[in-house]
């Protein structure tokens, strides 16, 4: 796993790392690399914040009127 450039490897798996979809061994290796590489760590923090940023940008509470309308769609008993 470490035969190639560790930064290239880190970049390749970073999204899966953020999704926590790597194997335990890969998660540990990514954590190790991020702890010792400021270049990748900075980009990791950016990617993590970017996800939160995108999430917040499109997350708005549902209008109460819509909830009411959905409730009215229930079938008659």
């Amino acid at each position, binding site marked *: 796993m470490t035969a190639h450039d560790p930064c290239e490897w880190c970049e390749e798996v970073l999204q899966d790392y953020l999704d926590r979809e790597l194997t335990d061994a890969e998660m540990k290796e990514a954590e190790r690399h991020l702890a010792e590489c400021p270049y990748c760590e900075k*980009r990791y923090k950016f990617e993590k914040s*970017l996800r939160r940023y*995108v999430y917040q*940008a*499109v997350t708005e509470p549902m209008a109460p009127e*819509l909830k009411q309308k*959905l409730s009215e*769609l229930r079938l008659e008993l």
Partner: protein
Amino acid sequence: MSETSSDEARRLASDARERVRFEEEALDLADQVYRVARGLSRSKEEAEDLMQEAYARAFRSWRSFTPGTNLRAWLLRILTNLNIDRGRRAQRAPDQQPLEESDYFLYNRIEATTGETEEERVLERLSQDRVPEALAAVPHDFRDVVVLVDIGEFSYADAAQILDIPIGTVMSRLHRGRRILKKELAELAVDSR
């Protein structure tokens, strides 16, 4: 009342209780379903229409839901299918544009053009108001996966089940969809400088 008709009455009453429970559980999940609907839609109005269409269909087909299975995923499957039907009617040619090679390119690009080096400051160069616009520019096959995983917080496996595609396809679309989104965000960030 004869035995048969009282059996029938009990069956109807039990059926009605099950249906009410289903409807209440579905309504309790509406906020979470709406988050995905909003992520998939260009406007609030479009998201609200999609929600009403999806809930009307869910209430009509409640019998096809198996109690004890994942109701949120079941509702999202209805919603994404409806959205795909809508999207197909107005879909552009599939996205074939070349993508940036590096996953770090958005950060690198903003850092290079603004001189900002702190990740939070780099992020501030993006306008949050324009994120829905950037997301809407992602072709829907890719956008569906990005919205389910990054906004709906579904696992790859749940997203695969909802969209009825293999998990490997979820991963490749997610990978490409996030890259396309970052490319769109980079263009907007450069535009607004």
